């Protein structure tokens, strides 16, 4: 698998995503600076990592979503390349208009770093096939703005089109519909707040995150 991790000023989980993809599926991973304007067409996966791009200033992901590399991300989304946005990456995908809704401040108004048990609510997307009949997955969240919000019609649409991929068993931040991760209509863009890049090996506490990468190998 050939993958690219986009690095924005302020991204800090870029290396974690590289190591996770390499460990889980022996991926060949390239780091791409946000000022570049080309992403090669033979890429199997583009990862938009977690972190505090532009310090999370103004709105999380707002400034990153207007970076020079953004046009290429939109182009790849259009042509069907798999795109995985984790934490800040999910926020960037929403700001860029590739996924519906937005991530507001946690209802506790506090940054939360804890393990969360997830429901794999749709296990036949290209990102979750490898879960098979394992319906639960343990990962960690680490964010201050993980409170997913969209208007009621959008939430209904996401439910009806079975585009909610992960839900929190115990909602840590007030997310509507306990939503932890959603996918776009075409099924090639996944945004999720929990970190599979921190749950890819037993010594880190869980390796349930590895399945997100393993699923893509079955594509």
């Amino acid at each position, binding site marked *: 698998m050939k993958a690219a991790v986009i690095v924005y000023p302020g991204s800090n989980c870029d290396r974690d995503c590289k190591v996770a993809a390499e460990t889980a599926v022996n991926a060949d991973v390239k780091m791409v600076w946000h000022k570049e304007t080309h992403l090669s067409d033979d890429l199997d996966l583009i990862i938009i990592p977690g972190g505090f791009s532009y310090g999370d200033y*103004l*709105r999380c992901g*707002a*400034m990153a979503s*207007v970076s020079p590399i953004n046009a290429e991300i939109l182009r790849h989304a259009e042509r069907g390349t798999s795109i995985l946005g984790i934490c800040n990456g999910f926020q960037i995908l929403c*700001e860029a208009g590739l996924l519906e809704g*937005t991530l*507001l*401040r*946690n*209802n506790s*108004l506090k940054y939360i770093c804890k393990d969360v048990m997830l429901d794999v609510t749709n296990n036949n997307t290209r990102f979750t096939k490898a879960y098979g009949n394992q319906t639960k997955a343990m990962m960690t969240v680490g964010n201050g703005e993980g*409170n997913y*919000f969209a*208007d009621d019609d959008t939430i209904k649409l996401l439910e009806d089109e079975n585009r909610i991929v992960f839900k929190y068993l115990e909602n840590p931040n*007030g997310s*509507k519909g306990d939503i932890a991760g959603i996918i776009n209509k075409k099924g090639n863009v996944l945004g999720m707040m929990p970190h599979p890049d921190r749950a890819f090996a037993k010594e880190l506490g869980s390796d349930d995150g590895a399945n997100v990468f393993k699923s893509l190998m079955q594509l």
Partner: protein
Amino acid sequence: MKIRVDVKLKNGVLDPQGRAVAHALHTLGFDEVADVRIGKAIELEVNETDKEKAKARAVEMAQKLLANLVIESYTVEVLG
């Protein structure tokens, strides 16, 4: 030239911060507070003397970056 762009969450959009501040005000004894909404007051200093042009550009900035039109509304005011 100073321009002020106010960005607010649209009605119906959850405001966790506003709700928490309202709660805190109640615990401090300000029971008359019914609701609190918190938005951004962005003050721009621009090298532009033509008021109309400055305003138009500020609107463009709001649409391109300063506001997320899905969940936010904005107003632009030239302070001169």
